[in-house]
């Protein structure tokens, strides 16, 4: 009796599973982006035609992210995966393999002229290319082309959105350059928690010094901290800035020892929450340049 009951239940279960899952009638194309800044750019270019899922969310650290099973599932359902490349997402290969992703991988930074950094005799590529608006335009163009290739019907929409986005970047670029011009030249250097602003610095003429090196994975040594403190004191650097993805305790210690001001929060590797001061790519630049200007122009 029990065996027959179990058999019946098993057959019903098999029948239920064999019924094909109805495809959800959704006209939006599903795409994935590795982190919040890239996700925002894809949303700006794709508009209503795309449904973007982002892995490393606001205020998250893209250098050391650990993907979850939900991420793998979302990736397997996406047609395009947008990544930054340049060594930012060390965790991405494993996620691609484990999720069985069959779509197209688009490296948004293709065509960007990468900066190199020398870290303890090792030359590594600086992955934070999005911090220069000129590179941002290259990213937007790559995203637009990838979306058109996957969804030719939306060509007009993507081109219009991309143009609007790139125009916004041009305007912001003028803003940033004007703001930097207002700062006295000897004050155009700051200390911040990790080396994420190399491209910003070289594009707009500011110097960013950090105690930790490029990635947030490494721990500072006493020599690094001592060098920064010596430099701040010697060059009279006026302010230290916190970043939204790293620990502020070390920076507080440096600030209190050198008398430098704590200048505010800069957004480097991630956006803030959507209603926060840096909820999208252009707002991130606006917030950063405003924070820098306030502390350094005086």
């Amino acid at each position, binding site marked *: 009796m029990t065996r027959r009951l179990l058999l019946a239940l098993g057959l019903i279960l098999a029948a239920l599973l064999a019924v094909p899952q109805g495809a959800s009638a959704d006209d939006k194309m599903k795409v994935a982006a590795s982190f919040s800044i890239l996700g925002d750019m894809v949303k700006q270019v794709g508009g209503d035609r795309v449904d973007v899922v982002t892995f490393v969310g606001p*205020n*998250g*650290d893209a250098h*050391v*992210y*650990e993907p*979850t099973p939900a991420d793998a599932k979302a990736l397997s359902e996406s047609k395009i995966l947008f990544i930054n490349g340049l060594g930012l997402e060390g965790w991405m290969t494993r996620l691609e393999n484990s999720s069985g992703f069959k779509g197209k991988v688009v490296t948004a930074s293709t065509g960007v002229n990468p900066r190199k950094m020398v870290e*303890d005799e090792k030359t590594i590529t600086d992955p934070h290319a999005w911090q220069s608006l000129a590179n941002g335009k290259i990213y937007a163009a790559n995203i637009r082309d990838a979306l058109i290739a996957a969804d030719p019907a939306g060509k007009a929409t993507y081109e219009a959105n991309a143009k609007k986005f790139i125009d916004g970047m041009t305007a912001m670029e003028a803003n940033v350059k004007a703001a930097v011009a207002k700062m006295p030249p000897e004050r155009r250097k700051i200390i911040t928690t990790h080396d994420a602003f190399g491209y910003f610095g070289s594009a707009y003429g500011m110097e960013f010094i950090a105690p930790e090196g490029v990635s*947030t*994975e*490494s*721990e*500072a*040594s*006493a*020599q*690094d*901290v*001592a060098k920064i*403190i010596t430099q701040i004191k010697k060059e009279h650097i006026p302010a230290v800035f916190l970043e939204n*993805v*790293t*620990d*502020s*305790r*070390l920076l*507080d*210690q*440096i600030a*209190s*020892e050198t008398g430098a001001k704590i200048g505010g929060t800069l957004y480097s590797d991630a956006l803030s929450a959507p209603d926060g001061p840096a909820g999208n790519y252009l707002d991130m630049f606006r917030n950063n340049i405003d924070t820098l200007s306030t502390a350094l122009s005086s």
Partner: protein
Amino acid sequence: MIHYLIDPFMDFVFMRRALVGCLALSLSAPPIGVFLMLRRMSLMGDAMSHAILPGAAIGYLLAGLSLFAMSLGGFAAGIAVALLAGLVARSTVLREDASLAAFYLCSLALGVLIVSVRGNSIDLLHVLFGTVLALDDHAILLIGAIATVSTAALAIIYRPLVLECFDPQFLRSVSRWSSPTHFIFLVLVVMNLIGGFQALGTLMVVGIMLLPAITARFWAQDISGLVVVSVLAAFVASLIGLLLSYYANVPTSPAIILMAGVFYLLSMLVGWQGGLLWQLMPRKHLEA
């Protein structure tokens, strides 16, 4: 020559603060480590350091990088795990080691889960690694307070504690201080772990507790000797570790613990009490 040793501390406030923090830790943690080692509970220290993680994680989630919240949470988690493990050992077929292992593993997994779900991964790393270079006033006060309380408490329970190490049955037969002593000792262990993890992180804090104590075993014969040698070893290891971090550009916490490890290896070779080199030398035969 001597100015190489002193200059970093003269020139930089953060080096002085790190040294003060390490000094306070070196006073309070190694004596606890001595007793852990004598009671064959050395690995328990490591287990407890993992057990405090979910408490610290919950404290972080509720109040950010607040010293008070993380310490209180860690303390509560540590005591809870220790008590539960003891309770299970007394009332079921499991012995202390199995029950503690079970609880601390659950505790650790819970801590990782909580932080991954609500926090982001960088926070977990900071809880694990700590920063001896970034001890603010509150952290130094906490470590100092823990050192004071711990040393005082250890002095008060010294006699029953020693007896409990060597002959617990006898203690139980002549006094009712056996259980309270054991409990107070566990509280001291957890308290020192909390103090240490703010400076060195949960991975390294057990190192400063146990390595100097284990090293002392090769130099001293009685308990007071063990305590003195372990405190000295811890302090010198901290000093040299800080200097190494300054001159050789290596991260500080691992440098300190590795120095303690080097002392251990050297002591194993040349320590007066049973060092390997002395064992190789021919000893006098007993003569009738």
